[in-house]
């Protein structure tokens, strides 16, 4: 399940294309997650989750920054994400299944905005990349 050279190349190329808009897409992914999988909202009872919420946008940007960091550090994900993992393990205590749901909604968001780029090979590489991120994120859980 390790990321191949092709996986890395495809993910990096897409990320370059997303440029400074990663936050737009992660925010949309969060909105999609909340609508499609309402139980995920239980982690955000402290936020305004109404459409267009600036708080959701701010959270989307945090997710974007973490994913962009991950793209930079593909060879070293567990280490790169260790602080985030501890945060999610010890303070946020988000059930790991929720990350899968957000990951899926991010894929849907990217498919919707970049249909021409979203080849089966890219979908496979992105899916693998997100699994690695999720793995790293839960690595400190117990």
């Amino acid at each position, binding site marked *: 399940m390790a990321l191949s050279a092709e996986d890395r190349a495809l993910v990096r190329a897409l990320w370059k294309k997303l440029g400074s808009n990663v936050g737009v897409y992660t925010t*949309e992914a969060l*909105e*999609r997650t909340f*609508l*499609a*999988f309402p139980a995920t909202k239980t982690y955000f009872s402290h936020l305004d989750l109404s459409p267009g919420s600036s708080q959701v946008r701010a959270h989307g940007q945090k997710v974007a920054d973490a994913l962009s960091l991950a793209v930079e550090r593909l060879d070293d994900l567990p280490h790169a994400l260790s602080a985030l993992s501890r945060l999610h393990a010890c303070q946020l205590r988000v059930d790991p299944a929720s990350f899968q749901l957000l990951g*899926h*909604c991010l*894929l*849907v*968001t990217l*498919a*919707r*905005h970049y*249909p021409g780029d*979203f*080849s*089966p*090979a890219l*979908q*496979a590489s992105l*899916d693998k990349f997100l699994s690695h991120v999720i793995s790293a994120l839960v690595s400190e859980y117990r």
Partner: protein
Amino acid sequence: MGHFTEEDKATITSLWGKVNVEDAGGETLGRLLVVYPWTQRFFDSFGNLSSASAIMGNPKVKAHGKKVLTSLGGAIKHLDDLKGTFAQLSELHCDKLHVDPENFKLLGNVLVTVLAIHFGKEFTPEVQASWQKMVTAVASALSSRYH
């Protein structure tokens, strides 16, 4: 299982009306086999599955994908009784095909990404939410007769 509102039903039905089942079927099954290669375990008789392009161009994959989505499409008229609609297929997938129901969830999510590619802007978060209910309910109905 999931309760479909009238709005869900209208959303699902209207989007499905615009789907080319043959193309979407091939795309969906093909992508499942590419993205989750272990799912190829059910398709040893399909011939060349050695690369993404081989899989996406494989005529047996396209034909089977069409079959699967045709069945799904047929169920859209019976959203309030998916368990009944899929009872026999559920038994078949358990007793004859020996398919782990986890695969139904994978296929459902791949279908959602294929719809996103094809419908773009129209595939809003609200539309996706209705479709997630659909694929979850179908997966559940297909596994309901497992024993």
